[in-house]
């Protein structure tokens, strides 16, 4: 009965994982048989690759800033929507709808909105006497600009938080109120413990998504650089501006499909897998310590 599941696990997880592990010790270009080169890919990765450090730091930045900001924003909006009395459905739709926009379309729209020369954001800022920044064209602001985008499309997490908030038993608030708890204490001692599984889900999936962050950064780079094309393969604009949007996943893609180095790309992927695994295990253990059953 479990055979289909085991087959799926083997074909779609174990086999690719083991194959990548094997390829990471080889020189492999897809066309010729892989040739064993020992640790050379890893030596190059840790000592010679000119961009892997930058790509890793950029990715870490998204993990550290984008994931928490997105979760807090979604939680805050969900908290507000719980209290809405009128047009409740409409408000929920308004905040959820951006999540339905395809990622590429949302990035293109955002880059045009924040275009320093022609975008409406800087025009509005100009009306107030403010010289708008370069946004996606400024290495210092490109990543924060993408965080703004991620907040705009946080409807997917927000709707889960909303469901979880609505699921908190009312009597718990009433009981805590009778015990003298104020609003903040109710949030800390009633709401948050109830939300722990959902927060863990949002955190783990958010961290994994941030570690694999690709589409939004690649499209933003292409559009902001003025070199958005279709059908030209690995874009020369990846990472624009000044590699500030070069993420680890994009670097794997460039080395694999742009430079035909699948052995090296596999080594990069294995390092990402290890880092993601460690992070997720760490998060689950830390959060597990705060679950109600563990705490009690």
């Amino acid at each position, binding site marked *: 009965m*479990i055979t289909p599941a085991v087959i799926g696990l083997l074909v779609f997880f174990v086999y690719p994982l083991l194959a990548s592990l094997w390829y990471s010790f080889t020189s492999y270009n897809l066309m010729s048989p892989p040739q064993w080169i020992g640790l050379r890919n890893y030596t190059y990765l840790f000592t010679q690759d000119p961009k892997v450090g930058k790509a890793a730091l950029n990715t870490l930045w998204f993990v550290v800033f984008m994931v928490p900001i997105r979760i807090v924003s979604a939680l805050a909006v969900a908290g507000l929507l719980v209290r809405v009395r009128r047009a409740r459905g409409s408000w929920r739709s308004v905040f959820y709808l951006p999540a339905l926009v395809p990622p590429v379309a949302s990035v293109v729209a955002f880059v045009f909105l924040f275009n320093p020369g022609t975008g409406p954001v800087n025009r509005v800022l100009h009306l107030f006497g403010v010289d708008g920044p370069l946004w996606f064209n400024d290495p210092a602001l490109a990543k924060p600009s993408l965080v703004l985008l991620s907040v705009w499309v946080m409807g997917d997490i927000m709707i889960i938080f909303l469901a979880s908030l609505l699921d908190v038993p009312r009597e718990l608030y009433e009981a805590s109120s009778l015990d003298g708890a104020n609003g903040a204490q109710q949030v800390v001692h009633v709401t948050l413990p109830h939300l722990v599984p959902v927060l863990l889900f949002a955190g783990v999936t958010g961290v994994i998504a941030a570690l694999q962050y690709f589409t939004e950064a690649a499209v933003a780079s292409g559009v902001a650089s003025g070199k958005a094309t279709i059908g030209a393969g*690995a874009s020369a604009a990846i990472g624009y501006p000044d590699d500030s949007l070069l993420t680890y996943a994009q670097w794997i893609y460039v080395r694999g499909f742009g430079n*035909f180095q699948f052995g090296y790309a596999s080594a990069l992927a294995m390092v990402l897998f290890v880092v993601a695994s460690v992070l997720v295990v760490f998060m689950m253990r830390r959060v597990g310590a705060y679950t109600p059953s563990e705490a009690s």
Partner: protein
Amino acid sequence: MNFRRVRSSLLLTVSAGAALALAGCSTGSADSAPVASAAPTDLSGTVSLWHFFSDREAGVIQTAVDEFEKANPDVTVDIHSGQDDAKLQQVISSGGDVDVAVSFSSDIVGNFCSTGAFVDLEPYITRDKVDLEQFPEVVRTYTEYDGTRCTLPLLADVPALYMNSAALAAAGITAPPTTLDQLEADALKMTEYNPDGSIKTLGFNPLMGFYENTPMNFGPTVEAQWLDADGQAAVADSTWPEVMKWQKAFVDTIGYDKLQTFTAGLGQEFSDSNAFQTGQVAMQIDGEWRTAFLADQAPDLQYTTAAFPVGMGHDDLYGSGTISGNVVGIGKGSKNPELAWALMKYLTTDTDSVVGLANGLKNVPTTLPALTSPDLVVSPQFQTFIDIAKDPKTTTRPSSPLGSGYGQPLTDFWTKWQGTDGSGLQDGLDAAAQQMNDSLALVAAP
């Protein structure tokens, strides 16, 4: 739970996984069978053609294929349009049905020739006595790698200088600049500023990374080299500093921040809001394909073209440039290599076909008969690109198994360096050369 059944299931699935793993280690079909001693007299069957074109351009390819099918009524060409190099690589490596493949860039030649992704064409060329002299020498160079010819050229891309005629007239400029210093002087004359000091229109945008401002296009102005005879990076010991210092000084004259702000507000390169088409930039380096965009999207814009200016002391280079282009190959494991070769030979060497494709795609033909064909539609602006393609000093960037990737360290350094105080040029070039050599060494391992 029946543990014996579970164990059997696990055994079965592990076996299946192992089989899959072993299958995954294969790299497509074996090499093609030996080439027949004589070309088949009658062609029949189905041959697949994979190319990257889409929309209107795919229609131009279809027209050429229709002519081939008309000449060979028993042959059917199965066209797969909109396929980029990454897709080609995946399909060929997995033994997919790729008979003839068109890549948009000669950058893949080093990899596809050295790995055997495209079969060696020499046996077919020798057997059918195909005259390779019909291709300009530089075109022959970028379609082979390390003595292996696995591709033939299918039209070329050549950059040149586009000039807005009205802007030239307004600035009193009557002849195109022939040196980089003249280009800068003319550009500054044509540059206008807003009352707040920001740029209104630019004569020429010198920022590295803007549209077609690339090391590959700027390097030939001073005969800069990418690799030495041993295949090692030559960027630290070549003439790159000459053109880089000129470009950096030009950027500083206008102001890096001003240029960044202005450039950020310009439209997409491949759209009707291209800055040259909108008049925001009066001169720019661009490929011959821009003539088609201009005819389609800005038909009222009056413009001229000229060879891109050259560096001081390199006057003899004026009129030349850089060239690269689409290449065609036969996929490893093609099940119809003779049909594939016939289609490929038709597309790349038949003068009528090459001229028809060049007229339709507005790219530079890659055979000498096509370059001089009376049927080739050549506007005065397009003639510039024909002349550059025929110039014996026109060069190309050498190919490598890394694709275009080996040149990226220079591009990265230049793009960053232009915004600095200008120090550290030689150190940066040394580092870029080291990074290029490290990458080349890794791909050459073991």
